[in-house]
Structures are given as structure tokens and as C-alpha cells.
């Protein structure tokens, strides 16, 4: 099947925008993606046709809304290959998903002397929740180190995982380096010693096919806004056996079975973890975003974005003094780089004025910046709507800007 990028682009009204009089080139997809018209229309339709609170009332509006909401749970289950719909929990985002597991799994399974293994390439959202938890419970964070090329030193796992290890937290795809970690291998090493694995999938689900069952992940988290869906919605997949053992994260409506002043019994999963009225609109509007990814085909998306990655990497390497951070053998469409003698902030600011949106800074991964001993990088990250022509324009602008800054 031919990858019809023009058709995909036509779904995203924002791509027709001009910034500073120049056509927009949006290369900051790892931070957040743009929204297709399908998602926008769904949001509008919900409020104009059938809005009500879910799971509660006996009226038509509430029923329709509940159906729409719950059908997205089925869609998510199918999208990531989860065993059952009850294993899909809606959250605010990847960060909340990580915090939920840290708090709730932590309460049940982490005690003084426990160890939590966290990789060196993690985004702060898959590092700080574990640090806070370790601090609270007298546990210790153990680092899974990275090599210079941006690959995790998985061979060390057999030593790092001990009888004290309670959990291993790792990202599927690095938001800075683009490294696609060998998850199956990492999870296998952890499971051999009965250690569950929490996976940050925020940079993975929109780029490569993901099947949580095949990976045998214990927890897998991601955000809607990075996968062409709305803001403020995330997913936590958790294996039933863990979720059922974990205490609720927050208390409130929806998550209870019976309440007296003396005692409350809690709902079954997933509702036990969904206290209060959720982001109904957000969840429902995530549906068409997933549908778009599925219609396009994750294999095709991965192949297209890989082509963009290769095309861009090749051209960047021609530039004098340019250093790329992260050259793992398995990479997703993310390139972090610096140019000798130029501050990444200067590059980003000037590229912006040429209509090209890139990210500069530490990308919420300070330990990674310390590893390379740099203040930050310029990062370009691709999405389903990007083209090689846009890369040409980026390279041309970059050359012009570098000439001015050198």
C-alpha cells in the first residue's frame, strides 16, 4: 500500500497555517502532536448531540455517552493488544499513569530496603514518581545505565536485579534519543526474577506497532495528546493480577461499590482506579485518533517515519561540527543534535522564525543531559504528516541559520 501522506495532511487543518509568513513545518511531535479533523469533530458532536455524565444516570444522554466512552476502552484494548478491557485505565496522561502505579503498587509492594530499577534515559515523568516513592518508603533507586550510542546496557540486568528488586521502570522509546529499547529482552530478564516492569510508552504507541501481551509488559502507559488525540487523557494498561492486588489511587465517586460511614468497599477494576468524573470528552475523542492510526496502519507509519529519520539523519551528518546524540541500531523518528560552538537555544529560536518548529532544551531528561555533559540539544521529531520536502526546507534553513550564528 502506498503511504498517502497528502491525504493524511489534509486531515490536519493546522498544517495549513503560516508562521511569521512562512509555511509551518512542525517537527516537535515528541512534545505533542497536532489534531486531525476527526478528533475535532468528535469533540464538537459530543457536546452538540449527546452529552451526559457516564455510568450513573438512567437517561438517554448518559447512556449514549457511557457507550461512547466505554467503546474507546475496547478500542484501546484492541489497539495495544491487551488481554481484557478491564486492564485499561483512563488517566490524565503518562505522568499520572506512572504516579498511579508508583503510589498504589508502591503501597502494596515497596517497603524499606526495596529496590526500584530505573533506566538512565528516562523522562522525568518516569523517574521522579519512583524517586518520591522510594523516599517515602525507604527504598532505593538503582540505575540501569546507558552506553554512549544511546542503548541501555541490558547485559547488566542480571546483576542489577536482585532479591530486593520490586519493579523495573523503563521507556519503550527515548524521547530524546529515539532509541527503541529491546523491551521483550528487558522484560524477560526481569520476569526471570519475578520482577514486574512498568513501561513508559508515550513515545512508542504512535510510531511503532505495540502489543502489550506479546511484550508481556506488566504496566504500559501513554498519552493521547502525543498520538493525535486530545489533551488531558492518558492510558494505563496493567495486568489484572497486579491491578487487583493494588489499593485504589484516589477516593471518590465511581470507584466505590458500597459506602457506609465506617467502611467502603471498592469497585472492580478498572473503575477502582477511576475516581470521579473522568475526562469524558477527551476519552471519547481519543477514539478517532486511534482509528486514524489503525486505518493508516502502524507498520506503514513506522516505515514512513523511518524513511524520514534516515533521510534527515543522512543530511544532518553532512553538516560540519554537527553531533547527533543517540545512534542506537533501533531508532524511532527522533533526532537530537548540537552544532559545535552554537547554543541549541539560538538554533531553535532562529529556526522558529523560518517557520520550523523544533524543540530545544533538556527535554525533561536532565540525567541524560548530564550523561552527555551538555546544556541541551535541538530535537526534531517526526509524525505521520511530515514529509521529505519539509526536511529539505529544515536543512536549508538550518544551513542559513548556522552561517549567521558561527
Amino acid at each position, binding site marked *: 500500500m502506498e503511504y498517502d501522506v497528502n491525504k493524511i495532511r489534509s486531515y490536519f487543518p493546522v498544517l495549513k497555517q503560516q508562521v*511569521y509568513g512562512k509555511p509551518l513545518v512542525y517537527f516537535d511531535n515528541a512534545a505533542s502532536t497536532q489534531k486531525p479533523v476527526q478528533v475535532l469533530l468528535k469533540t464538537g458532536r459530543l457536546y452538540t448531540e449527546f452529552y451526559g455524565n457516564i455510568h450513573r444516570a438512567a437517561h438517554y444522554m448518559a447512556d449514549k455517552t457511557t457507550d461512547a466512552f466505554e467503546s474507546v476502552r475496547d478500542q484501546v484494548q484492541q489497539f495495544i493488544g491487551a488481554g481484557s478491557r478491564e486492564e485499561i485505565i483512563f488517566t490524565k496522561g503518562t505522568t499520572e499513569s506512572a504516579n498511579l502505579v508508583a503510589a498504589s503498587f508502591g503501597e502494596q509492594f515497596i517497603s524499606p530496603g526495596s529496590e526500584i530499577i530505573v533506566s538512565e534515559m528516562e523522562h522525568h515523568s518516569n523517574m521522579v514518581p519512583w524517586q518520591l516513592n522510594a523516599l517515602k518508603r525507604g527504598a532505593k533507586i538503582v540505575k540501569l545505565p546507558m552506553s554512549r550510542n544511546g542503548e541501555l546496557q541490558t547485559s547488566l540486568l542480571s546483576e542489577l536485579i536482585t532479591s530486593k528488586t520490586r519493579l523495573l521502570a523503563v521507556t519503550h522509546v527515548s524521547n530524546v534519543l529515539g532509541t527503541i529499547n529491546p523491551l521483550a529482552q528487558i522484560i524477560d530478564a526481569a520476569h526471570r526474577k519475578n520482577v514486574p516492569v512498568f513501561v513508559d510508552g508515550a513515545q512508542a504507541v504512535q510510531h511503532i506497532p505495540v502489543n502489550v501481551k506479546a511484550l508481556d509488559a506488566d504496566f504500559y502507559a501513554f498519552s493521547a495528546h502525543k498520538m493525535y488525540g486530545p489533551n488531558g487523557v492518558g492510558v494505563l494498561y496493567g495486568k489484572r493480577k497486579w491491578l487487583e492486588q493494588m489499593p485504589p489511587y484516589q477516593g471518590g465517586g465511581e470507584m466505590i461499590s458500597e459506602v457506609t460511614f465506617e467502611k467502603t468497599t471498592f469497585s472492580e477494576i478498572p473503575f477502582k482506579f477511576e475516581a470521579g468524573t473522568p475526562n469524558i470528552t477527551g476519552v471519547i475523542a481519543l477514539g478517532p485518533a486511534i482509528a486514524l492510526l489503525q486505518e493508516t496502519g502502524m507498520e506503514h507509519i513506522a516505515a514512513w517515519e523511518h524513511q524520514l529519520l534516515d533521510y534527515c539523519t543522512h543530511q544532518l551528518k553532512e553538516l560540519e561540527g554537527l553531533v547527533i546524540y543517540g545512534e542506537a541500531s533501533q531508532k524511532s523518528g527522533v533526532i537530537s543534535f548540537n552544532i559545535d560552538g*552554537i*547554543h*541549541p*537555544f*539560538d538554533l531553535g*529560536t*532562529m529556526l522558529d*522564525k*523560518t517557520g520550523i518548529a523544533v524543540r*530545544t*532544551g*533538556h527535554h525533561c531528561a536532565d540525567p541524560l543531559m548530564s550523561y552527555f555533559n551538555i*546544556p*541541551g540539544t535541538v530535537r526534531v521529531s517526526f509524525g505521520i504528516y511530515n514529509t521529505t520536502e519539509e526536511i529539505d526546507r529544515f536543512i536549508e534553513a538550518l544551513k*542559513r541559520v548556522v552561517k*549567521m*550564528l558561527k
Partner: protein
Amino acid sequence: MKTIEEVQQDILEEFSLYEDWMDKYAYLIELGNSVEPISAVEKNDQNLIKGCQSRVWLVAEKKEGHIYFRGESDAVIVKGLVALLLRVFSGRTPGEILHSQVHFIDDLGLTQHLSPTRSNGLLAMMKQIRLYAVAYDRLDN
């Protein structure tokens, strides 16, 4: 000596001569490169104004009722903006600084430097300039 407002107007006029953004930046970079570098010793933690992405150092001295500033940044564009801030504020009395309204950076539109969410050292530098003015003002009175 021109007032703070007059200097801001001068700066805006100079930049208005350039229509293309790239030319505005070229001018800003030129200004940045013309800033007298501060010494390695002065690039210490005490003078460092921590920003999100770029580092800015600011040194203040008071002579005969006026505050003289020197500053630098590791990012060229920020250095250019520092040059402009020094031009506006260096050699002023604490009173002049405390009664001024700074609008030229926003007006130039070169970057969203003064929005608090985009903290890259410049907003912090502005605050620091005011803090020096407050401190020296108190010392005087």
C-alpha cells in the same frame, strides 16, 4: 543622558530598519558579539542567573549614585538581548530603574523572552536588575 523610555524607542527604531527576521537577528547577534565579555572569575554561581535553557551572568557595581551593569550569556541571541538591556539600564540611578516600564523586548518580537513560562534567564535578569536597584536604593536611604 537619554531616558530609559527614549533608549527603548531608539532600539525599536533601529530594529524597524530591518524588514526580514533574519536581518533583525543578524543585527542582534552583532550587538551580542560587541558586548564586553565578563571575566571567567566573574562567571561564578553568585552572578549566575539560572534560566531554563541559556545561562546569563550579571555583575553590578555602584558608582556615585549610578548602577553599572555588565552581563553575558552562553547563547548568542540572549547575549544580544543582554546587550540591549545593558544599554537601557546601565548607568541609571536606582530610582530610574524602579520607575521604568520595560516593553522593548516584547515589542521587538524577537522571542517571547519575558513570558514567565519561557523562563530562559531574561525575565530573571530583569528581576535581578530591579533587585539591585531596590538594594542600592535602600543602602542610600
